[in-house]
């Protein structure tokens, strides 16, 4: 039996707020196999983005264990987690989250530079060409449209060939046509690299393109249907 790409066991997440602690996720267990494409759907506030944050080691669970390729996040300090993300993951956000002081090329090359890899700029340029932005490498985010920014974010998330691709509402801030082209790119890139894809969305049709759909409600998994697209 192969090691799952991501394994969550009895994971809970409680965040502090001014009104007191808020329970976001309740005793949640989920296993995602290597190469799977998983759509996570649910209404606003159901905890799907928080679940993605936990998978991306951007947030620590209040209780339970989270592992990626057998590596328990709980045993790693912040810097080890950062290195783990750098080497294994690519993350795409709804609001793109490009660094405004860096050009498209610099934004894409950053993960490679942080990893100390040779030829970071050349690889970043190739990644931008792959998403159709070969001519806009020197533009700053403020000089790009929303769709273009998300393409840069896609290129950044995939440039180092991550084993896990996490996407949080990647079309949430885009119009229909632009969103569709981004999704095509996302699945295309995933297909090229065979990465495990976890896609948070509230677009049922989009989720249906995944091999598995996890439905969430009120911080719990409501349903988990494999081969939905089949």
């Amino acid at each position, binding site marked *: 039996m192969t090691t799952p790409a991501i394994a969550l066991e009895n994971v809970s997440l409680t965040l502090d707020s001014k009104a007191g602690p808020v329970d976001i996720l309740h005793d949640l267990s989920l296993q995602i196999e290597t190469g799977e494409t998983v759509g996570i759907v649910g209404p606003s506030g159901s905890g799907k983005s928080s679940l993605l944050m936990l998978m991306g080691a*951007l*947030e620590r669970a209040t209780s339970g264990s989270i592992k990626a390729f057998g590596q328990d996040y709980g045993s790693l300090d*912040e810097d080890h987690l*950062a290195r783990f993300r750098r080497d294994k993951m690519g993350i795409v956000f709804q*609001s793109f989250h490009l660094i*405004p002081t860096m050009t498209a090329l610099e934004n894409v090359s950053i993960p490679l530079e942080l990893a100390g890899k040779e030829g970071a700029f050349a690889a970043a340029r190739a990644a931008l060409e792959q998403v159709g932005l070969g001519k806009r490498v020197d533009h700053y985010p403020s000089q790009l449209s929303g769709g273009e920014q998300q393409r840069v974010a896609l290129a950044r998330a995939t440039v180092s060939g991550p084993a896990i691709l996490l996407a*949080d509402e990647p079309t949430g801030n885009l119009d229909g046509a632009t969103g569709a082209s981004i999704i095509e790119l996302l699945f295309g890139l995933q297909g090229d690299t065979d990465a495990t894809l976890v896609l948070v969305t509230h677009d049922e049709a989009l989720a249906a393109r995944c091999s598995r759909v996890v439905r969430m409600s009120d911080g719990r998994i409501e349903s988990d249907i494999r081969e939905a697209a089949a």
Partner: protein
Amino acid sequence: MMLAWRLARRELRGSLGSFRVFLACLAIGVASIAAVGSITGAITAGLQGNGRALLGGDVELRLTHRFAEPEERAWLEDEAASLSEVITFRGMIGAPSGERALAQVKAVDGVYPLVGAVTLQDGTLDAALAEQGGTFGGVAEKALLDRLGLSIGDDLRLGTKTIALRGVIASEPDRQTGGIDLGPRLMVSTDALEGSGLLQEGSLYRTRYRLTLAEGDTAEAFQERLDEALPDAGWRWRDLSDPSPGTTRVVERIGTFLILVGLAALAVGGVGVSAATRGYLERKTETIGTLKALGASGGLTVAVYLIQIMLLTAIGIAIGLVIGAGVPLLLGPTLSEALPVPADFGVYPGALAEAAAYGAMTALLFALWPLAMARETPAAVLFRDVVEKGRRMPRPTYLIALLALFAALVGAAIFFSGDIRIGGFFIAGLVVALVAFALMAQVVRWIARRLSQNAALVRGRPALRLALANIGGPGSETTGVMLSLGLGLTLLSTIGQIDSNLRGLIAGDIADEAPAFFFLDIPAPQRDDFVAVAEADSAIEKIDTAPMLRGRITGINGEDADPEKISPEARWMLRGDRGLTYSATPPEGTTLTEGEWWPEDYTGEPLMSFIEEEGRQMGLKVGDTITINVLGRDLTARIANFREVEWRRMGINFTMVTNPAALQAAPHSHIATVYAGAGEEGRLTRLFAQDFPSAVAIPVREVIERTRDLIGQLADAVRGASLATILSGLIVLIGVTAAAQRRHLFEAAVLKTLGAERGTLMRAAVLRYLLLGSAAALLAVAIGAAAAWAVTTKVFEAEYVFALPSALLVGGLGVVATLVTCGYFARRMVAVMPARMLRSRE
């Protein structure tokens, strides 16, 4: 307008907290100007309030080289209610041990002082100065006792007379300070000088006639009568309108300069005001859009925010005034003791008004641009994030208002400083420095952008890449950091470079070339003997002598010499007595620049050689006539030539030289410069004292030492005033960094998401601020060096030497300031939790 006021009030409610930097910047600048103004005001008022005591009466009339003629004295006695005669001169005091020291001797008559009282540590003045057993007494400042190892009861030598030291002066109401004192005070009675050989014709002494006026008489009326009755006496007049002109001038000059330094703090504060206003208005973009969507005009929008800025400005100014007026009041008792002049600490509305005016103009000047740009915010911002504003520049009305405000600020600086050059140059310097730092920021950004894309440089150095991208990228705080730190560091650097060069010049070139002594009051008949003694001493390398007279310029081309009619830099020429000499040949080292020297045996119409620089400043040309009052008589001479003089060689040189026949007949003494190695001063003082008791020896090296100390003290005072600029800069820096903080936190969160470790982020932040601090310091050092170069080479005509320690200090301060200020923010950045930060941005 009422609507604008209502809206402004609602808007401002609860927003005060976001204006901390705005208020602090304004308050510091205003406080420093108000404090300097209040202290200057206190001293000026102190001088005025103690005017009669300082002046020693209602009026003082001073003569040089001579006593009032009997008829002059009789006239004064008739016209004044009371009259006192005081004589002052420099004299050599001999101790029983044989040691000799220079003292400022003051001989007083029986009625001295007409106003106030001299207090001694023990006993009364009259008893101390009286003749007892054939010996007159004297009282001295403690410094003289310390210098010569004297105790009460010791016999002193003064000229050929013996004086018994009977007391130590505790306070002397009419002791004038200002400049460098050449020795402590020794006070004796005028009768004690009888037969001392000190007050011969031609020796350098001053007689001061202090008068109190009869009831109903005024100084103006008295002066009119005096001018009419004794028009050619050559009195130097002083009255209660300015009892201590020298001190007042020094205090006002230093005060003016320090206020201008305070203006630099305000200019840096202006950068903070501008940044805070811009930040506030950016946060209010939606509100402005909403107001416009609801029908508010552009004018109303500007009015709403202008009212808020004005209210905040008023609060900032009020805080500054309270601090600026309060601190001197609180420190008054301590300062009064430390100051060598009387000071009357209180609230000086004029000084506070000046500070408030500067504060208001600076705040509006710096806030108007962002305000004018806010007017261009369209209602469409409510619908789309990115909206092109129609204009990149404010409308012409606002540009005109900006120019008018700037002109008003320049006008105020010139008006308050009372000098178009000082005020104008300082403002020009501020503007040039601000523009230089803004340009430098763009250059730094451009370089950083280029370097960040240089693969060979940044490969394997992600922290450097991040730092460079941050400095060069859009929205970077580079300009803010450079402007906030720049002016303060530039001030420090300029002061450091000038101070170091001047002190170096004095300690080096001047001290090396300077003579060991100036001898004054060598009686004319003893001049040849004096030279013979000097030439016989093997330690003396060289001796130069020249006849010396003092006179006051009273006329130019037959008209009264009016200081108002000549350029300000030359007015000192008309202010007091000037030394003059005569010579058959051009003095050594003279270069004639125009005209001819007179023949050696010339005896015709009196001719004069004038120093070119001062002559030109006074508007003189060859052929003009100068009238000088020497010993109560007017001498009119025609200018035959101009010449150049290198003053800093400290040889004998005079502004005015006449042909011998013009002055030879007037009673006069000689001065001499004696060149000898260091360490010979004590022996040579004793050597000349034996044969020439009236000759006064001024040890030049000691004076140089004191001058160097004085420059150091002045530099320290300016450095102190610069602290306000540095402090203001730090607050602006904190404001700029805090404004950029949210962006940096976000970037750190994204970078962590992409795999950046905390160490990489910390290194990137440190590098960023290290580079910015260094760039600001580098430019500050460059500007400081350029200013010091100009001062050293153009004003002092000396070689400029780059002062490395000062540069290192400025560089270190720049780097430390940025690192410490930003360290706090960097720590927060490193600790940021990516999920929370990114979630809040979704």
